[in-house]
């Protein structure tokens, strides 16, 4: 076989697929997204034609010519074999210029697919992207250029290219497991619980330990007994201590029972079959309402609020909030509703949703001599796909009883996160196994394990009671939230408290009440997911507000204008919020205006139309048309401290190096940090290199969550760069004062090693806003919904990189359309049924319309150069806007997500009459 022009002679193993064969030969441009032919991340050209290499038997390709993304420029269609090895193919250049990737994990497969497909490329069935919402990919296919080159010092606010772009599109950027395998690498396989609730009576790993190639087998007898939470926060006390590395009690199907470590993944899997386990099954509960009733099986009995931070273990309640507030002169929610001109009462539900980051969880651990000379104890290195390297380091040190300086955690480029990688899920296993065996150890989760073993989005049931006077002013707003946190309480308190927070606070009502509980069940655990609870609760509240407007005959946008908070208003949830949340800026009014105006006019001519035939050819008969809007507010930074440190150094080559601890997982912070530093220093953006997410080279950073990368780490980068600029200016004052290119002139020869640093504690915090609007057509006979217009307005303060921000919004909308319309983890009696992507229905290109993205014109006084965060937020208003549009079209309000065709058809009471 020839791989990118190089002969490979290794014999494939029986049953080996081409994907793993190629990676074993060093062709790590070939990614694993699903290993089942559904996602396309592993696409290569096989004798010139694109194939998903995970489905191709390697033995058949023995004499084939294979081209990966890394060789596309030289050996792809039209390529020049004599060109520079890093030469890009025209398709790859188009992806760079269109900014058609975010995390970039799918990109190597995408460019191979496009390059190998004769035009027209069509709808790219067979390539999934979770980050972009596909708009920028459409742009790349059309040859549109969305990026620009900024003058020195002018990068802030410009659509500059991501620094890693060329490496990402050619598959050269190293994700978690893309570095060459260290010699002696061992592999992990984990036995999952077959029962939703059981106790291990007896477990015998003797035979497994003797199996060929096996170096280690761990059961609950062999691991630290320390309680922890997989969720990671700045303050580890935010989450309940209810988890053990290996626990004799199993609380969900798929929970770790035993760990095998062997020389090959297959040997490790084979060893698991030899682990002899006797289970005592226990009664299980899957419905969160049943779980909190008397007599329900107790899932974590004996856990206490003080020691474990479990609110009420006797009712399976992990976290709860019950608050009511009436402004002076008001008599509370019940009295206000009784006196209201119109009221609405209803229940909304959201289902289990999977993050589907294209890169699965995975980590490698190894031991090496310490970084400081003379260190006697080896340092435990962990390279992992995480959003929070420092928080992982801290908890690993605690779990393994090691000093922090003996643990180094590094994240390479992370292939998508969406909150799912704000957890400690694989690192503990590889770390302990490396310590026990002295060998490097790797664990790469399968796509199936992503569905069955790791946390998903919290499903919620939300009751809303709302009332308004005849003018549409809210008199009362009350919610009753029940969240299913599954078998463990990771992120249960955070998601619950955040979920009810900005969603309630964004509306003014003199009487408010919040009842909220997050409840253990024997389902797969829930965890952090983009929006962190807000999307679920806002789906319900925005539906109720819409319904109230309809009852009063008030335009839905006007209804919101009359009731949203304005600068100066207190933030009230179930009581007034005291804390560090401020109106650093306010653009909600603009967002409402922008969406209202956009929905009223024809689509802008520069926007390509959605990929459906012209409306007039089909829109008749059983189709009904309607519009809907919804809004969302989000705090720009997580509460209670989000710490960061940035250092900017003049490198030996005269360029500038930014060391910052936050992680790049497609959120674009590396681009943003380079733009900020280059702007402060007055240099071209390509003279700044950002080194991120390494606990040994960067100062502490809480992590890449809560949309903190731009406004927390970014502010520290800005301050450090400002400080360095001042130093450099004074050092160079004698020769070059007043010249804007002073740094450019002298840095390389005289100033190498000069540095400055800065920190930020994530306080005070501002608020950001999003409004989404849809115009939809609903087919009453089939339940099909077609999106005719999609408009999104975002209040992100001063926009740092318009193309990148637009990409974040497109991606948030696309992901939200999935949870709104098609995505659902089906779980029956605790068993996840949807275990592959082909059964899960995350959006493909053909499922996502182009959204018109608009920005409010605001300047935030807290963020770097007036910017606000905008990463999670675009997700939140999409589902309610869609439901409101469907309600407007049909008169029937969907209250349950996802609004699948079959469910909507049933809701509409459609018949099959012809």
């Amino acid at each position, binding site marked *: 076989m020839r791989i990118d022009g190089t002969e490979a002679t290794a014999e494939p193993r029986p049953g080996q697929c081409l994907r793993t064969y190629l990676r074993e030969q060093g062709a790590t441009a070939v990614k694993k997204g699903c290993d089942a*032919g559904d996602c396309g991340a592993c696409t290569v050209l096989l004798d010139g034609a*694109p*194939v998903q290499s995970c489905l191709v038997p390697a033995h*058949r390709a023995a004499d084939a010519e294979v081209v990966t993304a890394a060789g596309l420029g030289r050996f792809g269609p039209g390529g020049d074999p004599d060109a520079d090895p890093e030469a890009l193919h025209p398709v790859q250049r188009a992806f760079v210029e269109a900014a058609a990737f975010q995390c970039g994990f799918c990109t190597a497969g995408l460019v191979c697919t496009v390059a190998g497909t004769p035009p027209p490329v069509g709808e790219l069935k067979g390539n999934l992207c979770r980050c972009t919402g596909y708009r920028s990919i459409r742009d790349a296919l059309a040859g549109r250029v969305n990026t620009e080159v900024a003058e020195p010092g002018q990068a802030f606010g410009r659509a500059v290219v991501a620094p890693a772009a060329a490496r990402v599109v050619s598959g050269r950027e190293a994700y978690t497991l893309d570095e060459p395998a260290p010699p002696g690498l061992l592999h992990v396989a984990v036995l999952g619980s077959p029962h939703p609730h059981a106790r291990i009576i007896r477990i015998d790993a003797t035979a497994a330990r003797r199996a060929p190639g096996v170096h280690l087998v761990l059961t609950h007898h062999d691991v630290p007994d320390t309680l922890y939470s997989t969720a990671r926060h700045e303050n580890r006390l935010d989450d309940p201590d209810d988890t053990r590395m290996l626990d004799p009690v199993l609380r969900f199907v798929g929970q770790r029972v035993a760990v095998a470590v062997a020389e090959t993944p297959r040997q490790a899997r084979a060893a698991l079959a030899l682990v002899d386990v006797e289970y005592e099954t226990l009664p299980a509960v899957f419905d969160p309402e049943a779980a909190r009733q008397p007599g329900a099986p107790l899932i974590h009995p004996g856990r206490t609020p003080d020691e474990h931070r479990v609110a009420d273990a006797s009712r399976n309640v992990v976290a709860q909030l019950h608050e009511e507030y009436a402004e002076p002169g008001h008599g509370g929610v019940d009295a206000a509703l009784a006196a209201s001109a119109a009221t609405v009462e209803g229940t909304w539900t959201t289902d289990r949703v999977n993050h589907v980051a294209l890169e699965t969880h995975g980590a490698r651990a190894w031991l090496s001599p310490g970084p400081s000379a003379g260190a006697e104890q080896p340092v435990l290195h962990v390279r992992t796909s995480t959003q929070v390297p420092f928080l992982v380091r801290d908890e690993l040190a605690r779990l393994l009883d090691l000093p922090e300086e003996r643990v180094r955690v590094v994240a390479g480029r992370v292939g998508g996160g969406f909150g799912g990688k704000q957890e400690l899920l694989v690192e503990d296993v590889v770390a302990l196994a490396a310590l026990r065996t002295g060998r490097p150890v790797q664990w790469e989760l399968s796509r199936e394990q992503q569905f069955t073993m790791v946390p998903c989005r919290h499903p919620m049931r939300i009751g809303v009671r709302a009332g308004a006077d005849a003018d549409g002013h809210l008199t009362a707003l009350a919610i009753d939230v029940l969240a299913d946190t599954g078998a463990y309480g990771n992120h249960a308190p955070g998601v619950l408290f955040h979920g009810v927070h900005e969603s309630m606070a964004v509306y003014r009502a003199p009487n408010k009440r919040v009842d909220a509980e997050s409840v253990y069940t024997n389902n797969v655990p829930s965890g952090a997911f983009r929006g962190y609870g807000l999307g679920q609760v806002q789906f319900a509240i925005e539906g109720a507000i819409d319904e109230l407007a309809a009852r009063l005959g008030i335009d839905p946008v006007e209804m919101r204008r009359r009731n949203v908070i304005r600068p100066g208003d207190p933030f009230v949830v179930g009581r007034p919020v005291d804390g560090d949340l401020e109106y650093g800026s306010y653009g909600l009014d603009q967002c409402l205006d922008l969406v209202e105006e956009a929905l009223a006019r024809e689509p802008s001519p520069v926007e390509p139309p959605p990929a459906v035939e012209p409306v007039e050819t089909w829109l008749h008969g059983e189709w009904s048309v309607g519009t809907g809007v919804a809004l969302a507010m989000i705090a720009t930074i997580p509460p209670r401290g989000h710490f960061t440190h940035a250092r900017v150094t003049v490198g030996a080559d005269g360029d500038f190096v930014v060391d910052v601890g936050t992680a790049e997982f497609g959120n674009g912070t590396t681009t943003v940090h380079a733009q900020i530093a280059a702007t402060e220093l007055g240099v071209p953006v390509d003279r700044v290199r950002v080194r991120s997410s390494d606990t040994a080279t960067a100062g502490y950073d809480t992590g890449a969550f809560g949309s903190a990368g731009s406004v927390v780490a970014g502010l520290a980068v800005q301050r450090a760069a400002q400080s360095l600029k001042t130093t450099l200016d004074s050092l160079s004052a004698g020769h070059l004062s007043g010249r804007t290119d002073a740094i450019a002139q002298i840095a390389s020869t005289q100033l190498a090693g000069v540095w400055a640093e800065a920190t930020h504690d994530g306080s005070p915090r501002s608020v950001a806003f999003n409004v989404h609007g849809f115009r939809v057509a609903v087919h009453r006979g*089939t339940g099909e919904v077609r999106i005719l217009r999609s408009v999104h307005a975002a209040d992100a303060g001063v926009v740092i990189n318009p193309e990148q921000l637009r990409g974040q919004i497109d991606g948030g909308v696309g992901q939200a359309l999935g949870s709104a319309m098609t995505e659902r983890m089906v779980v029956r009696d605790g068993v996840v049924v949807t275990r592959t992507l082909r*059964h899960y229905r995350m959006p493909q290109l053909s499922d996502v319309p182009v959204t018109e993205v608009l920005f409010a014109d605001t300047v935030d006084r807290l963020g770097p150069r007036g910017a606000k965060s905008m990463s999670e937020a675009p997700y939140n208003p999409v589902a309610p806007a869609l439901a409101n549009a469907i309600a407007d079209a049909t008169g029937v309000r969907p209250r349950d997500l996802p609004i699948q065709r079959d469910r909507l058809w*049933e809701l509409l009471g459609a018949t099959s009459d012809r």
Partner: protein
Amino acid sequence: MDLDIDTVRTARTRADCVLRPGEVFLGGGTFLYSEPVPAGVTGLVDLTGMGWEPWSVDGSGLRVAGTCTLEELVSGPGALGTDTGGPYRALGIVGQCVAALTLSAKVARTATVGGNLALGLPAGSMVGLFAALSARAVVWTPDGGSREVAVSDLVTRAGVVELARGEVIREIRVTATVLRQRTAFRRVSLTTAGRTAAMVTGCRAGDGVALVLTASVPVPHVLLVRANDHDGLDRRLGWITGLGDGAWYEDTHGSREWRAAMTRRLAHEALDELGDV
């Protein structure tokens, strides 16, 4: 994905097609390599080494080899099909039937007709295609002989086909008479390119129309109705519903009730299309 097996044999002769203990046949492999192999499977016999001609047409009709890839099916017989007439008019629905699968062109390059049939999945569109064409499958038996079975009888329950261990789908045969007929295709799924939830294929035969229901039913149903007889079609559909709870198929790609209703819509549309011209 990598399969935990020990041997792969590439079959070159009929004698190679005799399975040894633990072996199963490998067609294109696009399904086999997408899931862990079932317990007890230790080896594969790769049928693509047999070198069967992918397809051929002559005066007696169309033959499609079990190892014909879906891409070859579309670019070969599919390209012969027309909307307007001619000797291969019936093949006009081939492209739609392949597109009905969730797989992309990249996978169609490897996936085979025989593999799709042998899976026996309700949404396996080769069943709907060839059943509508009244095709018969030639099955090689392990004793060196062969037998024929109607494609519409191949699937016995969802995911189960009427093939004994060691039997291979050698080829599919469609008669020249059928190839001249008018055919129709309809499908629906929860998303535009998602797994098919209901599919109706149809073929005109004289005064009658054969409608084949797949995806919404666990096994294919062939409904023979007179052209334009919508009441007769409703009676047939009602008879299916009368079979009870399992009559309409349900999985995560659509509820039973919705699928039944969509099937009815699609079947009437197909009957309309195949009515008098």
